[in-house]
């Protein structure tokens, strides 16, 4: 199940760059390069070999870490891994923001159904999902960095540097988590065991916190896992706005600099991470809900 996806991912990243119209060597060398330079590049990177051989070389380079960046004269992995760490820091901070705000909003919506809290949370969630991250980032930067001068407008270093990017990146996930939590909470609150718990004379708070929330959070866990992958992708835009030195920004600068090996390797690594996170979520889901059993 996993292996075909892994092969497919590396093959896709490889093929996108090789089946594209135009000569990749010419693309790498730039329009002004002489024909000899282009030929030299073509030979140096094995682009004159048959495609299957090139793919094998690419995979070998990925696995052994020997795949070289064109821009920095160093192995692509050495460039990517520190940036990946920075992106993971940002994504984790965003997930914390999104889970805390999203679950709170979702639970309040469900327990105060059809009240102004519910409507406000629903509309705010839709706003959060609809907000272009790059614009939202610029607005917050304008307010908190340019006007109020409370927070730095970019870069990485102190805790204050991460606040704006984490909030911006986590906004859409907050909306999605809030909506998921609301609907699963409403589902759970209709169950017989909730009625039973209430009939026993337990306080509303106890029923919600002990009996309902735990079960309602199971679908939320899945959404959080899926959101984590979306955050890795959303980081491309957020990192560009806040000049956060992560893998998303590396990907964009590498595309613009035509550093194809780094682009390919970064794509494969993000995709692999995403696939593994989704797998972990599936397993966690089975652990949390004993009714779910996977065969084989």
């Amino acid at each position, binding site marked *: 199940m996993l292996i*075909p*996806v892994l092969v*497919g*991912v590396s*093959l*896709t*990243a490889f093929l*996108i*760059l090789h089946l*594209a*119209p135009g000569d990749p060597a010419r693309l790498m060398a730039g329009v002004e390069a002489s024909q000899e330079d282009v030929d030299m590049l073509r030979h140096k990177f094995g682009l004159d070999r048959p495609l299957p051989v090139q793919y094998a070389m690419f995979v070998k380079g990925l696995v052994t870490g020997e795949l070289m960046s064109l821009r920095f004269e160093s192995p692509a992995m050495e460039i990517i891994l520190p940036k990946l760490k920075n992106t993971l820091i940002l994504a984790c901070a965003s997930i914390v923001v999104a889970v805390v705000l999203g679950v709170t909003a979702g639970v309040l919506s469900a327990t105060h159904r059809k009240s102004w809290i519910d409507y406000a949370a*629903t*509309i705010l969630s*839709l*706003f959060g*999902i*609809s*907000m*272009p*991250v*790059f*614009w*939202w980032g*610029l*607005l917050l*930067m*304008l307010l908190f960095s*340019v006007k109020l001068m409370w927070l730095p407008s970019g870069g990485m270093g102190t805790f204050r540097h991460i606040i704006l990017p984490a909030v911006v990146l986590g906004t859409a996930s907050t909306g999605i988590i809030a909506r998921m939590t609301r*609907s699963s909470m409403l589902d759970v609150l209709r169950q017989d065991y909730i009625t039973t718990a209430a009939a026993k004379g337990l306080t509303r708070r106890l029923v919600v916190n002990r009996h309902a929330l735990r079960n309602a959070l199971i679908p939320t866990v899945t959404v959080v896992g899926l959101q984590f*992958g*979306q955050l*890795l*992708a*959303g980081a*491309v*835009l957020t990192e*560009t*706005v806040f000049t956060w030195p992560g893998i998303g920004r590396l*990907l*964009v600068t590498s*595309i*613009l600099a035509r550093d194809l090996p780094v*682009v390919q390797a970064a*794509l494969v690594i*993000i*995709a*692999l991470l*995403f*696939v593994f996170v989704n797998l972990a979520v599936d397993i966690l889901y089975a652990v949390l809900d004993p009714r779910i059993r996977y065969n084989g």
Partner: protein
Amino acid sequence: MADRSQGSLVARRILRNPIAVAGLAIILGYLFIAAFAPHIAPFDPTAQDLSRSFAPISAGNPMGCDEFGRDILSRIIFGARTSLIIQFFSVCIALVIGVFLGALGGYFGGRLDEAIMRVMDVLLAFPGILLALAIVAMLGPDLRNLIIAIGVYSIPQFARITRGSVISVRQNDYVTAARAIGENQSSIILRYVLPNAISPIIIQTTLRMATVLLTAAGLGFLGLGVQPPEPEWGTMLSNARMYLRSAPMVAVFPGLSIMLVVLGFNFFGDGLQDALNPRLKE
């Protein structure tokens, strides 16, 4: 699903939902502006006048001017047209190919289904904007390639939704009956299966219009979308970012336009979901 009584039932449910009505109003306004852009826009969206660089908001330029003295309102209005073109064609590509693959896999099952879904899994392994980013990076940034990239990256969503829906429909008695009287496969799929599997596809199409616009604008913001001087909201924001400190207002309107239109499709899609699946709501 297509018969009139159900259609009017769905329409009534939507009209009773204030959020869906708001979404519909935004979408209609957007379509109107995109369709009649040349008649509405006060200026040529690409006409430069450096003497009016960053001219403030005034009666003549209700949204001010950008760094080249171009009227921002006119660029926003023509930008609506660019966005609509991208949304329409990319969603069409994804809809046609995705529904075809999903219906094929869902209806016939077996190895064919397995193969199609594995390919979709691989495409879905590149989260969010990444697949579109990779494709457009390689094809080169322009309007046509942007549409292709965003279309391709939306295919798996349509394939999955269609497949799931087709699988749940194909077990119905009327499908078995059609097969029993010897109707051929493609007519069964087109006449009996797809019309009954279409609700989730309609919802997905509406919501996808929102996602696709965000992606196109995001690629524009990264410099990989529609190239200047063509007016496109994301590209406009990318330029405005460079003057954020000196002329912050330039960044406000393109972002606001993106958000409003995306919000419109999300509001409407949300209402549509409730109207087509009333059981989900309660």
